[in-house]
């Protein structure tokens, strides 16, 4: 009985985090983006500087009619938002935010494998949506998503493998336990490659060709309305949280920091994640969208060679220090 309670409690906490953090990131994006463009952003909803804007948006989405196009593949069309969103919830279960056993939803021995495999499923949601919508723009968006996934999953896996090599384990808490401060300069190239590739997988600007609104309306999400559309948007922000959390855990030492081992570890994890999330927003505001061929070129001629070089470096240093 106690075990059941324990599991239930952990799931509730993870679910709460999953519901709250993406909204916080979304609201931060509203405000940061506005101020970076010399605007104020939302000011009314909720009274104080529009803090409840996303709640208001959610209410609006819930009120809208849920439309399925006549020629659409009904089942797949309706299932796609869930497929896009749920993997991020599952990944969140495995991310440790503190040093103790209780600071992670579920310790998974093959953590990196689990996390990267499940994150890959998330992109499947966009593919399903693109194919099932019976709309040529959606299909184009879906195919662009597929091309992007193919190009960027590889550097992501390679850099994650580099960290796993350095730590000698694929468990996320295990990697953190092995972390030393000098891993930071050692793995910095890998960290950048991982982060950029993750951005591309999330289809965040400047890598948002699959939803390039000036070219293909809204890509795979063109035909979606109401709550299902909101779920796709939520998936994007959940993806930011997960990507930043993963980058923190794999490359930035997670809970390591002053007093990190004495109970303040979770503050460090959240702080580093928040800084990375700010970076995601900052990049979005600053850079224009890449062209489709530039995207492929960046992945295959820059990121993958860099990732391979990182693996080589990791291997050499690993052998040298043993």
């Amino acid at each position, binding site marked *: 009985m106690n075990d059941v309670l324990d599991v239930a409690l952990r799931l509730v906490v993870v679910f709460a985090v999953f519901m709250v953090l993406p909204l916080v990131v979304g609201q931060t994006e509203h405000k940061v983006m*506005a*101020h970076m463009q*010399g605007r*104020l952003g939302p000011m009314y909803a909720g009274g104080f500087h529009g803090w409840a804007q996303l709640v208001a948006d959610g209410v609006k989405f819930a009120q809208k009619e849920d439309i399925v196009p006549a020629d659409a593949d009904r089942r797949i069309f309706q299932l796609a938002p869930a497929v896009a969103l749920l993997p991020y919830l599952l990944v969140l279960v495995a991310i440790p935010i503190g040093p103790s056993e209780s600071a992670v939803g579920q310790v998974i021995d093959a953590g990196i494998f689990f996390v990267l495999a499940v994150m890959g499923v998330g992109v499947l949601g966009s593919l399903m949506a693109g194919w099932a919508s019976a709309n040529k723009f959606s299909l184009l968006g879906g195919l662009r998503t597929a091309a992007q996934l193919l190009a960027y999953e590889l550097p992501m896996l390679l850099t994650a493998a580099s960290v796993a090599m350095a730590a000698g384990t694929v468990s996320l808490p295990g990697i953190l336990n092995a972390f030393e401060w000098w891993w930071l300069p050692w793995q910095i190239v890998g960290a950048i490659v991982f982060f950029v590739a993750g951005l591309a997988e999330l289809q965040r600007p400047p890598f948002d060709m699959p939803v390039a609104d000036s070219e293909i309306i809204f890509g795979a999400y063109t035909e979606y309305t109401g709550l299902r559309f909101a779920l796709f948007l939520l998936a994007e922000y959940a993806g930011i949280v997960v990507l930043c959390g993963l980058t923190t855990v794999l490359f930035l030492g997670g809970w390591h920091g002053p007093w990190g081992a004495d109970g303040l570890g979770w503050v460090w994890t959240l702080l580093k994640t928040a800084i990375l999330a700010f970076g995601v927003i*900052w990049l979005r505001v*600053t*850079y224009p969208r890449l062209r489709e061929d530039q995207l492929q070129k960046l992945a295959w001629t820059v990121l993958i060679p860099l990732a391979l070089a990182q693996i080589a470096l990791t291997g050499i240093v690993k052998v040298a220090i043993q």
Partner: protein
Amino acid sequence: MPPIPGSGLAKGLAVTLRTMTKKTVTAQYPDVQPELPPRTRGVIGLFEENCTVCMLCARECPDWCIYIDSHKETVPAAVEGGRERSRNVLDRFAIDFSLCMYCGICIEVCPFDALFWSPEFEYAETDIHELTHERDKLREWMWTVPEPPALDPGAEEPKEIAAARKAAEKLAAAQEQAAAQAPAAPEQPARQEDEGPTE
């Protein structure tokens, strides 16, 4: 020196970060009234007493959005044996602001200073007919007309003031002369040197 690769990307990030720390330019209009520049064209006010129903404004209006009705009244002679005079009396003066394009020609052309720009702009209506402002409403706008903005430093004196000042100076000079000549030749009246008319 060739630019360092990636320096453009860094520059872009710096620009957005710098903008974030600066004050925003958003005007929070319904909460904060805008600061309008002088001579703002908001709405047209009518100072009825100055209107002679000459119809110049209505005729010059490119949109034909000014409606004027009037009738003539006879004014009895002012002096015994004089001639009766007729006078125009304004019955209706309306401006249809749904047609008005705020060119200001009516105000420019009015020879008697009966029309003025007011900076008030919050008179939107849900019914387009309400945008035809009748004379009482145009009169209400008149009380919102601001003082004319001060002249630029070194600007030419306004004609009315210049004329009045010249007359006053002439009068003062004449009195001074008279005062100077009075003890010497009291029988000689003060002579005026200038030919110009004194109003």
